[in-house]
């Protein structure tokens, strides 16, 4: 029977995998998916080599857990590339396999070492950089261990940490706001392309327009094809929306399109002008 910590890991992993597999909600996907990709596989792997959770090792243990998760991700990517591809389902299968195999391996090792699995990392926080065999230097081999009795955090410290977090959040909000306001652009993309693009003399031509003005706008598109009289399209577009129109021409005939804005402040100002020239014979 696996110990409670392993059962908990398996249960959490199973819930996350099921939720990630079935959910179509973005927030839930993130909540379930992030631990699956960046944490739980590392927990499973590190628990094999460092089953004991020393308080002094807590931070270093987290480093190894996240590092192991990333490393397993890289390994998984290379293996999945060989056996079908890096799809969502294959990633979930890989993560589930890693966790289950790690827990099973830990049990095997625990039995082999008679209930004392490899304690590879249980010594990790000790610093033995200086010769411990030399007189006067033995105390330099320090195990950095905090006193559990004083491990509580005071209310004042919590308030200070919250204040630090609040300052950072406020700074981020300020950055997001000023960045959004000052980088705002208002323009329209116009294009004309032969279809296919590399056939410059094609009889089929695509006209296109995309509104990036930040608001709903109406555009007038004048189109001249060779000697055919001008055709005018009135195009109403939401912000971010695009419009395309396929027209025909004689092979290599010149096509010219001019885009006018109808709404102030542009008025009748030409916003864009595109054309397909007659290819040189």
């Amino acid at each position, binding site marked *: 029977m696996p110990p409670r910590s392993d059962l908990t890991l398996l249960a959490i992993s199973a819930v996350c995998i099921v939720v990630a597999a079935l959910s179509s909600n973005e927030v839930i996907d993130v909540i379930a998916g992030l631990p699956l990709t960046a944490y739980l596989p590392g927990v499973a792997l590190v628990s094999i080599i460092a089953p004991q959770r020393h308080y002094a090792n807590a931070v270093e243990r987290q480093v190894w857990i996240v590092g192991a998760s990333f*490393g397993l991700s890289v390994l998984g*990517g290379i293996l999945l590339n060989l056996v079908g591809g890096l799809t969502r389902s294959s990633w979930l299968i890989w993560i589930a396999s890693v966790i289950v195999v790690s827990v099973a391996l830990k049990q095997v090792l625990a039995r082999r070492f008679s209930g004392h699995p490899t304690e590879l990392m249980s010594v990790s926080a000790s610093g033995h950089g*200086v010769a411990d065999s030399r007189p006067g230097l033995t105390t330099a081999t320090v195990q950095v261990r905090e006193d559990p009795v004083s491990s509580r955090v005071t209310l004042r410290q919590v308030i200070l940490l919250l204040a*630090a977090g609040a300052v950072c959040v406020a700074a981020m909000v*300020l950055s997001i706001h000023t960045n959004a306001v000052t980088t705002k652009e208002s323009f329209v993309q116009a*294009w004309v392309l032969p279809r296919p693009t590399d056939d410059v003399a094609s009889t089929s031509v695509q006209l296109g327009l995309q509104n990036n003005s930040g608001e709903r706008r109406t555009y007038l598109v004048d189109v001249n094809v060779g000697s055919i009289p001008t055709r005018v399209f009135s195009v109403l577009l939401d912000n971010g929306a695009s419009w395309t129109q396929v027209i025909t021409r004689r092979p290599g005939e010149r096509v010219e399109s001019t885009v006018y804005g109808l709404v102030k402040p542009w008025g009748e100002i030409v916003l864009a002008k595109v*054309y397909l020239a007659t290819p040189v014979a």
Partner: protein
Amino acid sequence: MTTLPLAVAKVEDRPDDSVTDHHARQTYREPTSNVGRLPELALVMAVGSALIAIAFAGARYSRPWAGHLYLFGQIVVYASPAAFLLLRKRVRAMEAVGIAVLMPVTTFLINQYYSPGQFRFLDEFEHVQTAQTILATHHLFQANTILPQSPQYPGLEIITTNIASITHLSITAAGLIVAGVAHVLVGVAFYFLVLEISARPRLAAVAVVVYATGSHYQFFDSYFIYETVAIPFLLLSLLATVKMMKSRGPVAIGWGGVAVACGAVTAVCHHVTSYALIGLLLAFVVGQMLLPSSARSRGVLVVFFAVLAIVGMWDLGVATSTFEYFRPVVSSLLHIPSLGGGGTTVKQKTGITGQPPYFQTLAVYGAFLILLALTLFGAWKVWFSRRAYTNGAAIGFGVASFSLFVVLVLRVVATNGSEISNRALTFILIPVSFVSALVLVDQSVFRRPVAKHRIDARGPVRLTLVSTLVVVCLAVGGIASGWPTYYARLPGPYEVAAWERSVDYHTLDTAQWFAKYVPRDQGVASDYWTEGIVSALGYQAEPNNIAGLFLPTKYASAQNNVAKVNRVSFIVADTRITKQLPASGYLFEADPERGLYTTPLPAQSLAKFNDIPGVSRVYDDGTIVVYEIIGSQYLK
């Protein structure tokens, strides 16, 4: 099970014995929990980062005070942990490790204040293309139109697409998570590496702060680029190697395996980082050789050769274009035109543009000199205390720190010396930070590792103040020589040829248009920055040596030849290059006018494309115009 000696003297929790004065003992109030004064420090660093955010906001509105506030905020961010570590009588382990977390978290926040939730560096877009390709094809090693090495070192993109595919986050969001986590891992892993070597939390935390003063630490090394995710694995590999050297039996074998595994991940993630790992492991081997034979660990040699073999196999078997990638760099270093360095073999000219302010150059070289002095003293200190070490890590770092002098030579002599040395510093600062921290904390070159609980005690106050000032000077120098460079250090309106400042919605949307409507891998010629973005996000090829297409005001047969030789199909004309001077001093990668621009490019340089028979004007957004030249006479 192998039992290792575990001494349990709690150095950090013990009052410094220099506090012998009874009054001092009474007035020194202990923090009541393990986190000590960390919350206060966190608040001060948060305020420092907020000042930088305010400076960025001011810069976006072109406020003149923004630059000064930015510098003040940076000084707060670096001076506060340095002063905390160097001036306090005692530093608790949790406080030290807390600083190792706070430093990267704060610097990553600064990165995000600059460009919240957006990529702004050209190289990031190259890796976005690789990640997009993995998501679209579900396979690795697909071609990248602009950086062929990116899919051959897919570690970053594998982790990112793993997160993106499971969480449905965008590549940008997933990439920022990966880059942020990796950045924090670097700080904390480096802390534990130095702690493992020295057993001194104060020293380890100071080393982290010194490392954070590196010119590329704050921005470049936390961008969405492949080395960002490789550096933590380099450090984890070194950390596991040190643990192996200190262990015996199965435990040592286990840590050796972890070291090799981390080295393998490094090899899959980034070429230069894997070479740096080999170099540092070699330094450990050399360090081992300087120890008495009884204290040597053969495991280091095994790890070294195992990592060397993995890196060699990956580079020769998978990442086969790595040699081609480095050829121009080697050429520029050696000034050998036959190696194919092209325009980069010519020493860069300087002129009215692209020349940093003199005080910045002063700060850069001042900081470099300080770092050189610290390295000399620190390396001597390691050598002086060599008999006290049981493994070769500290001595290895002492040896490796001398590579800083090679960097100095490269900086002064080589073409692109500044860029090469800044990039190299990311790795060289690992040993250099360690030896520098030894000097800064001990404030004595000849002080041996002392016995008992004084090992990590604070030095005299006046000297610690000097040490704190030294860290601030290093930080200012790092910022001055670092990234973003001086003309883009603060965010703001679009600027021509200004890296992060040359990315806006016009360029990004043009790139998206290419991706959606134009077949892949067409040759797209433009100024270096627009070309880079359009090629990366638009899946197009990036021809070189196309300055000759743009610089003349008339289109003649010479331009035809340039277009033909470089297989140019589309010309992207960003009209802003005819209205502003290039901030970096050049518009094209191989620009004959580099550093010589005194006026913007003449408008006719771009308008000439309207008058070429057979050239179509296929795209226009009012600022950027795209010409298709397939129909022109050059192909005939």
